[in-house]
């Protein structure tokens, strides 16, 4: 989804920076590129990408604040590990703090954070608020306050939640959405429902296939007829299940939905991303004149 969003924004003429915080996602592969590193690389015209890890972010932060010596000592002694165990969210705030710095220096028109999966996403985005309460003084407090400010400013940041139309992912998404809104006050963009099967036709039967074949004067073997019918039935059943889940999502979460198609092709590469981006752009245009914030977290 991150790739789709980046592609959409780039097509609209915006410069995009993708920030990967977990590593090991297939993101760069979507653009047909090798995995990302801490140094920015170009992924496509107007789209750049990089990773962000807590250790690197900490060293970065301390060095730009004239605390180079402390940074070395903290990392070398293993104290960062202990302190981040002591203060949950320490690592997240380091990463989000760096994103904030990127936002302030206007590193791109749109910064997209490829955030962790549902359960982790909440604690990832909640960490600045929690930290601001736990640590009432010093640079961590300042950093937390600044990050909370960025996250809760709809002009600067929106969260795009992504799911597939299945029971557990839908439940997780609804829970995540409410927590993000209630506890962080972050602006939620449209919800993206990924991997939606195409709408099926009317029910098929062996009898119907036989009749069609006769009528058209073509040969369809009984085995092939059976495969045609069972594939059609499978689509109908899965589609109905997906509809149920998408409807349930709509009922429980009053946010606009963008549905992206299930892709039958083997791999997700640049052509597939272009297809998704076009679908996405068309649906978003239909929704509203959506104004994207500068930092978006899918």
């Amino acid at each position, binding site marked *: 989804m991150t790739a789709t969003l980046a592609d959409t924004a780039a097509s609209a003429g915006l410069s995009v920076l993708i920030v990967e915080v*977990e590593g*090991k996602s*297939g993101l760069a592969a979507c653009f047909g590129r090798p995995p990302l590193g801490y140094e920015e690389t170009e992924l496509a015209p107007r789209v750049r990408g990089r990773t962000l890890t807590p250790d690197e972010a900490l060293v970065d932060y301390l060095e730009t604040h004239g605390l180079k010596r*402390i940074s070395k*000592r*903290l990392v070398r*002694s*293993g*104290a960062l*590990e*202990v*302190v981040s*165990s*002591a*203060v*949950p*969210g*320490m690592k997240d705030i380091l990463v989000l703090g760096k994103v904030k710095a990127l936002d302030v220096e206007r590193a791109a028109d749109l910064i997209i954070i490829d955030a*962790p*999966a549902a*359960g*982790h996403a909440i*604690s990832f985005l909640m960490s600045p608020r929690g930290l601001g309460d*736990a*640590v*009432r*003084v*010093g*640079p*961590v*407090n300042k950093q937390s306050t600044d990050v909370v400010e960025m996250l809760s400013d709809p002009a600067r940041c929106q969260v795009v939640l992504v799911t597939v139309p*299945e*029971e*557990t*992912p839908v*439940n997780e998404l609804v829970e995540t959405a409410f927590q993000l809104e209630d506890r962080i006050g972050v602006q939620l963009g449209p919800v993206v429902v990924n991997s939606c099967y195409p709408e099926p*036709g009317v029910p*098929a039967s062996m009898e119907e*296939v036989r009749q*069609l074949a006769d*009528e*058209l004067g*073509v040969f369809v073997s009984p*085995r*092939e007829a*059976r*495969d*045609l*019918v*069972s*594939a*059609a039935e*499978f*689509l109908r*059943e*899965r589609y109905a*299940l997906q509809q149920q889940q998408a409807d349930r999502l709509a009922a429980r979460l009053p946010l606009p939905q963008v549905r992206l198609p299930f892709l*039958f*092709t*083997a791999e997700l590469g640049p052509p597939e991303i272009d297809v998704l981006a076009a679908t996405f752009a068309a649906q978003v245009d239909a929704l509203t004149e959506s104004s994207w914030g500068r930092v978006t977290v899918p």
Partner: protein
Amino acid sequence: MSERVTFEDIVRDRHIVVCCGTGGVGKTTVAAVFAAEGARRGRNAVVVTIDPAKRLANTLGLEELSNTPHEIDRSRWDPAGSAPAGRLSALMLDTKSTFDDLVATYAADDDQTERILTNRFYRNVSTALSGTQEYMAMEKLYELHEQGGYDLIVVDTPPTRHALDFLDAPRRLTRLLDNRIFRMLMMPTRAYLRVASAAVQRFLRTASKVVGTEVIDDVVAFFRAFEGMEEGFRNRATSVLALLAEPSSSFLVVSSPRRDAVEEAAYFAERLAESDIPVEGLIVNRVHPAFGDERVEELRARAETLAAKRSESVRAAGDGAVSARRLAELYTNLADFRQVAECERHHVAGVKARAGRAAVAFVPYLSRDVYDFDALAEVGRHLFTTTPTAPARAP
């Protein structure tokens, strides 16, 4: 090389079954399937779940977090009453209270327990430290092994960013306790003042500058309160890992047929093998059905021919146009699903080759969601080829 393991071997003979894999691949379902099958084969089985989907939780009678297993009425999982007399229990892991219990076990007295449980740093560690949930899942497993009297303990693992995290989990706290700085903090007060004062003070000053003194005070208080307990924790972690390495423990990797999930599963299996813990089963879940064996290109060609026929028929008039379009749609749909199936089979073929003697099963997408015992049994039919009639072999 020895023969391939079967899922029957695992459900009949193993004492501990750990289900691993990345999130969203149906691990909890597979864990429930194994425990229910074990019970149907006459074993006293328990499944430890972590955050199951609501309807599956209801099926297992888990309305809330619990620390003790809850037995599921036999009529629910064996309505025909045909199975040998096994038992089935389930519990939904409560991370925090499992941790609290563990503290109470190793504390010298109630006072020490109390000091730890009320410490703010402890509360952070026991609820939010990454890896704690994995650690407590392993801890619960060990506890059930020691005290529960169960023949078969099936454990679901938390959805982690990296599936290997849980193996490392029991060591994580001990590593924290082993940190040089904290060892100094834990020295008896006077020795600590004399010997380590300078280094410790320097560290504390630095750390206070970054996170504030309150946090550091909490940390120091926690480590002081923990004094004398780290040995117990360390021994416990060693025992848990030793138990997992025994031949009666079995690891299953659950995956979806997507390329990245399959890659992750293979990677995971290889890392476990390096730790001398062979993966005994690979379950690829939610596989699209194959729908025959015709080649995608041929099906697409037929759809195109029919579409061409359709334009002829439009000129010729009549219902032929509608019929041709309909049949072309059916062919396109079949071609689409054949393509997905081929692609998925291509991804999993590589893993099967790398799986060594592990059992491998593919569970297709069912036409409904899996949340009741009937559906669990249906999944089971893709894993276990024989019906559960033979009573459990004595352990």
